[in-house]
């Protein structure tokens, strides 16, 4: 069980070193080492410590958050098409962020507003789906999808009425951009905290995946566990979207890629998702920064372009 996690960990480290070295200005490995030791030219120090390190850590944290949230959603809803945004969370965060941009607020308030929007979306779906009588994942899914469509309509309205000069900023936020992340620490802390919280429950999640009746029969308290997963996944997604906007694809595909290779044991899949999701986003962000430099691409485009062939290859190989 440790071996795959170790390899993924090494891969993650290699990806981060690559990300720190590459960019509009290439920093070769010896210079990188110099900066780590505290020396190195002022330009390299600024590039690495003020620009690339926070951005790389934020990319890793965001990718990890999204992948774990996706894995949890897929277990909760027992639906392989579930991703972190299926319940309308990114829509609520987007409405919060766009409202803040419309009002001309600074980046800190925009992040705060996005987080508040995500929380509101979570509570809304929680409240609406928490009806009397039997609660099923499909009820939650339906409620979430409809609420997500509602948020989508509000976003479209806001894009239609906003003054033209604010549009590029809003569109870039909606496409997802790791460069918005001013500090990676909230995201990293939430990621580590969530993994620590979820690992003891991972065995119960394996049982839950067989179905609620079987899980209850085997002694798992189904309802509290489901709500815990829902709230945790919402926290992870809200943090990810607040850090870097709505980056798609990572949450949906990374858990599936890992399942094809490592099987469906949540005790491995959850930490592996964190590592693999982080690695994928770090590599995608590096490519987004360098592919057509000095032009900058949105990272969500690259995650899809990287992830789709990889996933299809793994799917083909597993037959």
């Amino acid at each position, binding site marked *: 069980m440790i071996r795959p996690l170790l390899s993924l960990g090494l891969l993650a480290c290699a990806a981060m070193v690559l990300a720190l070295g590459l960019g509009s200005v290439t920093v070769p490995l010896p210079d990188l080492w110099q900066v780590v030791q505290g020396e190195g030219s002022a330009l390299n120090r600024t590039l690495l410590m003020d620009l690339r390190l926070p951005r790389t850590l934020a990319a890793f944290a965001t990718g990890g958050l999204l992948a774990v949230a996706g894995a949890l959603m897929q277990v909760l809803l027992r639906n392989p098409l579930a991703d972190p945004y299926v319940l309308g969370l990114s829509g609520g965060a987007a409405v919060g962020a766009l409202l803040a941009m419309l009002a001309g607020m600074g*980046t800190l308030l925009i992040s705060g507003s996005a987080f508040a929007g995500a929380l509101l979306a979570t509570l809304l779906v929680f409240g609406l789906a928490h009806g009397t009588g039997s609660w099923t994942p499909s009820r939650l899914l339906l409620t979430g999808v409809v609420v997500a469509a509602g948020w989508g309509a509000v976003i479209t309205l806001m894009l239609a009425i906003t*003054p033209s000069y604010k549009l590029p900023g809003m569109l870039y936020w909606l496409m997802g951009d790791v460069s918005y992340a*001013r500090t990676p620490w909230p995201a990293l802390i939430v990621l580590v905290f969530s993994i620590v919280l979820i690992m003891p429950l991972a065995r119960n999640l394996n049982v839950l995946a067989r179905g609620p009746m079987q899980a209850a029969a085997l002694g798992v308290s189904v309802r509290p566990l489901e709500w815990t997963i829902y709230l945790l996944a919402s926290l992870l997604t809200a943090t990810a979207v607040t850090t870097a906007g709505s980056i798609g694809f990572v949450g949906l595909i990374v858990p599936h890629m890992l399942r094809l290779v490592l099987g469906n044991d949540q005790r491995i899949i959850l930490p592996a998702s964190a590592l693999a999701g982080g690695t994928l986003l770090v590599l995608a962000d590096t490519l987004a920064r360098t592919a057509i430099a000095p*032009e900058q691409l949105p990272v969500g485009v690259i995650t899809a372009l990287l992830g789709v062939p990889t996933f299809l290859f793994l799917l083909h190989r597993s037959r």
Partner: protein
Amino acid sequence: MRVHRRNSRIALGFLILIVVQPLFAAGIPRCAVDDAGQELCMSAPAQRIVTLSPGATELTFAAGAGDKVVAAVNYSDYPPEALKLPLVGSHTRVDMEALLALKPDLVVTWVTGNPPAQIELLGELGIPMFAIEPRTFEGVSSVIERLATLAGTEQAGLAEAERFRSGIAALSEQYRNAEPIPVFYQVWQQPLMTINSDHLIGKVLQLCGGVNVFGDMPRLVPRISAEVVLQADPHAILTGSADGGADDQLDGWKHYSGLTAVKKNNLFFVPASPISRPTPRLLEATRIICDYLDSARER
């Protein structure tokens, strides 16, 4: 004898002052207030300037500091020397690493056009920034003068600012009593967008004696429908095109044969960059528009 010595001492004093003054000039802090209200003081004239919008590039060159510009952003196509500049991304997404690697001592930014998150980051990294966004003719002259002060190119910059100022004043005087003519300026075809009187283009129309039929709209760049244009029935319709030549942007109006502008064939094309950028080329664009409106009045 004593007066003679005192005079020669005074003369010597003046001589020393004249010789030493240029050395001092370099050390006097150069301060200017930008269009966002922030004051920037530089201890020496700027030597490495990066401009973060095509308009800023033009204005910096107009201020005489063109040879001090080390990088610009996409679409910085005027003057022709600017085409050779290395690029640091676009005005909506700047490549921060490339910008830092150039070690600029002054970055000219666009108040509303550059992304606030990236501007905040530049501020935190301690890069001197000067935000511009001229909204009036006087604003254009003023920004050229302020940029010239910061770059130490006052001679060329002040001359250019004065040329623009007097050119606009002459046009203004020429068209002071021109007969008002209702006009519509089309910024974009789909969605249909125009400008109100607070916009610089609106002020150009006003100077030439045009009455912008949407001048009173609350938003700077309103999105409107064809219906309100038909209702307002302008006598002339103007739009910007790549080099001022006719293209298909106004073809949509030709269906409406009831429109006065269509009946009299008053559909005019203005060179796009000079009219949309707040730079000295606005003077040429204003002349072109005033000529068009004159011909429209005769028809």
